[in-house]
């Protein structure tokens, strides 16, 4: 099945890196979309069905926390799995993002395999 992924990050370099890892992952991801902050991502999600979202936390405009909160408030978006990619590996932050509905958390820096495994885990768990 061809999948669509949305990468939300204010860093163009990071988006480029993540998209390359995804395209080389062999996970059957056919379409990659990009947004530089939460509101832009929400606007995209109104128009396009997405199978998994990878998001940063610290972004100008709408940050990752508010983005997750807004997704949880929308019944149409709530089922879409979100994996957080962040340099913040504190337990405090991880717990908070899972409470807000994240299904995975990948700490930067990461090996490509870690991101691939994070996406696979989300799909395996059937969320």
């Amino acid at each position, binding site marked *: 099945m061809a999948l669509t992924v949305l990468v939300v990050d204010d*860093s163009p*370099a990071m988006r480029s*890196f993540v998209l390359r890892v995804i395209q080389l992952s062999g996970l059957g991801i056919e379409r990659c979309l990009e947004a530089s902050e939460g509101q832009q991502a929400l606007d995209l999600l109104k128009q396009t069905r997405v199978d998994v979202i990878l998001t940063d936390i*610290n972004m100008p405009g709408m940050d990752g926390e508010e983005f997750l909160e807004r997704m949880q408030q929308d019944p149409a978006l709530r089922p879409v799995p979100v994996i957080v990619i962040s*340099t913040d*590996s504190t337990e405090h932050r991880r717990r*908070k993002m899972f409470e807000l509905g994240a299904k995975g958390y990948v700490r*930067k*820096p990461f090996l490509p395999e870690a991101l691939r495994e994070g996406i696979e885990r989300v799909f395996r768990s059937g969320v």
Partner: protein
Amino acid sequence: MTEPEIRAALSTSVEEALEIMFFTSVLWESEKNAPREGDVSVRLRFQCSIPGVFCLRVCPKGARRIAANFLAQDEEALSGTEVSQTVCELANMICGSALSRLDLDACLHLAAPELVSPEDGWPQGDWVARSFHLDDGVLTAGLQFQQSP
């Protein structure tokens, strides 16, 4: 939090980020080097239990190599913007990683990295900073907390 702990967090975070995502090894580490003309220099303010500033500067050749590795492109094909954006991302990664290691017991809020002048961009005052020597030059990273740790 002591100065040796901050130094150790910086060293581990620089080496880990460079090796894992930028495919670059640190050859050796030294006291902070003086800035040089043409260095790509980035400043990033952060908020956590103790707020402060993180700075990173990379020599031009090293910055170009790091960007080429990260973006999987030829060095010659890269624009100055792509090099700067990659150094900004590296700063974000090292800063977040180092602060997480220091266990400051609060969510981190990192501002967007900003390009600054290598000579004037680093605020005055006490810094914990180290230089990391690469195949293609030197990278210097430093942390300054608003309260003395």
